[in-house]
C-alpha cells in the first residue's frame, strides 16, 4: 500500500527548515525574505515530491531550488524596482559596524550569482566543480564569478584583507 506523500513531506519540511534557512539568509541577505524564499521552495518542491527519484537527495534538490529561485526572484524584483531606491546596499564601510554586518552589506552589494558562488564556496565549503554543478554552469564561469566577487569584496571589506606577507605565511 502506498503511503500518503504528505506524511513523508511533512517530516521533510520539519527537517529541512533548520537545515536550510541559514543558507537562505546568506543567499538573500534578509531573514524575512529568507523565510519566504524557503517556504516558496518547499511548496514548489511538493510538486515533485511524489515523483522524486528515491536515490535523489531532496535536501540537495531543495538547496538548488533556493539558489536558482533567489537568482530569478532577484532579477524580477530588480526589474520592478529599478527606478526605486536601491535598498539595503548601504556603503558597508560607513560607520562603526560589526564584521558580520559589514559582510552582510557587502554580500548584498554583489550580483546574486556572484553572491551564490561566495556562499557555496565559503559557507558550504564546496569545490569549484561542485559549485559549477550546483549552479548548472561551467567551472570557468564559476572562476569568473568568484574572482569578480573577491575583487569587489576586497574593496568593500578592507578589514578582511591580508597583507601580502600575511597571505604568504598563512
Amino acid at each position: 500500500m502506498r503511503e500518503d506523500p504528505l506524511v513523508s513531506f511533512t517530516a521533510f519540511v520539519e527537517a529541512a527548515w533548520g537545515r536550510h534557512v541559514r543558507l537562505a539568509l546568506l543567499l538573500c541577505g534578509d531573514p524575512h525574505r529568507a523565510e519566504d524564499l524557503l517556504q516558496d521552495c518547499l511548496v514548489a518542491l511538493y510538486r515533485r515530491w511524489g515523483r522524486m527519484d528515491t536515490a535523489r537527495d531532496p535536501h540537495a534538490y531543495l538547496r538548488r531550488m533556493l539558489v536558482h529561485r533567489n537568482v530569478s526572484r532577484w532579477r524580477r524584483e530588480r526589474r520592478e524596482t529599478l527606478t526605486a531606491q536601491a535598498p539595503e546596499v548601504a556603503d558597508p564601510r560607513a560607520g562603526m559596524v560589526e564584521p558580520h554586518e559589514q559582510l552582510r552589506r557587502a554580500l548584498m552589494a554583489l550580483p546574486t550569482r556572484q553572491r551564490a558562488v561566495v556562499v557555496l564556496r565559503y559557507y558550504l565549503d564546496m569545490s569549484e566543480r561542485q559549485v559549477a554543478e550546483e549552479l548548472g554552469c561551467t567551472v570557468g564561469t564559476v572562476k569568473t564569478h568568484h574572482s569578480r566577487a573577491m575583487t569587489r569584496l576586497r574593496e568593500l571589506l578592507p578589514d578582511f584583507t591580508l597583507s601580502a606577507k600575511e597571505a604568504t605565511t598563512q
Partner: protein
Amino acid sequence: MMLDEQRLTSVLHELADREQFSPPPTQRVLDRVRPRATAARRRVGWSLAGTGVLAAAAAAALVLGAGTAPVPTPDRAPTGQEILLAAAEGAERAPATPKRYWVVKTTLVVRYLVNAGYHVTDRQVVQEWKAQLPRDLSWTGSLNLGAKPSTPDDEAAWRADGSPTEWRMGPVRLSTASESARVVEHPTGGGDYFGESEVSLAEIRALPADPEALKRWGERRINRQSIMPTDTDVHFATAITLLTSAPAAPAVRAAAFRLLASLPGVRNEGKVRDALGRTGTRIVVAYGDRQHEAIVDEAAGQILASKGNREPRNDCAGSDQQDRCDGKVTGVPDSYFEVEYSDGPPRPPTTR
C-alpha cells in the same frame, strides 16, 4: 592584498548563526500544498483510496449523493450506455471557444474516522484557474468549510468525546472552523495531472478524439498505482480526468464519454440530485470487485460528480498502532465539479 578566506568563512558562519528564525512553518506550507495535493488526487480517489480504510458497514452507508431523492423516470429507463452516448452528443454541442482561464471548481466531501470512533465529514472547495495563455500564471483558490460530525449518531459520540473542535492526525489537521477563502499563484502551465503524471496543455490539446486511442494513451501515459490495478481502472481514470479537469476540446470530451460507454458493467442507477442541488443521472461502472460512480448531466455533456473505487476493509481494527489509524480516510472523497472557461480575474472561491 588578498581577501582572508578563513576570516570570510568564519564571519559567514557568524552571520548565519546569530539570526533567530521562527520554528518550521509546517502547517503553512501544508496549507499551501494541500489544494494541489487534494486536487491531484481527487478525481477518482487515486491514492486516497489506496490508503483508505473502510468498514464494510460504512461502505454500505456511504453512497454518492447520499440523502438525495430519486426523480421519477419513464417506463423504460435508458441504459447506462445510452446515457453516456447522449452525454457525448451534449459535449459535442458545448461551446468551444477557449477563454483566458479554464476554471475547475471542485467541492470535496471527505469522511474521516477519528480515534474516538466516530466519523467527521470535512468539506473543502478547490478552484483551479488554469491559464490558457503562455504569458499567464495559473492560480489555485481554496475555501475550507470545516469538519463536523457526519451523522446524528456521530454527533452524539462527538459530544460524549467532549465536543473537540480540532482533530490532529499526522499531517492532516481538521477543525470545525471554516477558513476564509483565498487564491494564490500557481506556477504551472495550465495542463493537468493524470494521477501523478503531469500532462502539458499542448499534449491535452493534441489528444485524439477517439475512445480507443484515448484508452491506449492512458495506458501509456498514466503512471499506474496500486489504486488502478486493471486497464479498466486506467481507462475510467483517463476519461474522468479529461471530463472533470483537463481543458480538452469538445470532440475529445465526447470521445471520453464514448470511452466510458464502452467500459464493462455500466449501469444507469436513475436520476439523483447532487450535494450542490443539481439533477443528474447516477452511472455505476462495476466489474470484478471494482466499482466507480459518477453523476452525469447528459444534456450539458458534463460530469457533475465522481467517486472512485472503494476498498471495504478496516486495517485499524485490532491494530496496536491505533494513533496511525486516526484520520484515515474512510472513503474516497465525493467530488462535485463545476467547469467553465472564464476571462478572470481569478478570485477566491465562494459557496455561491
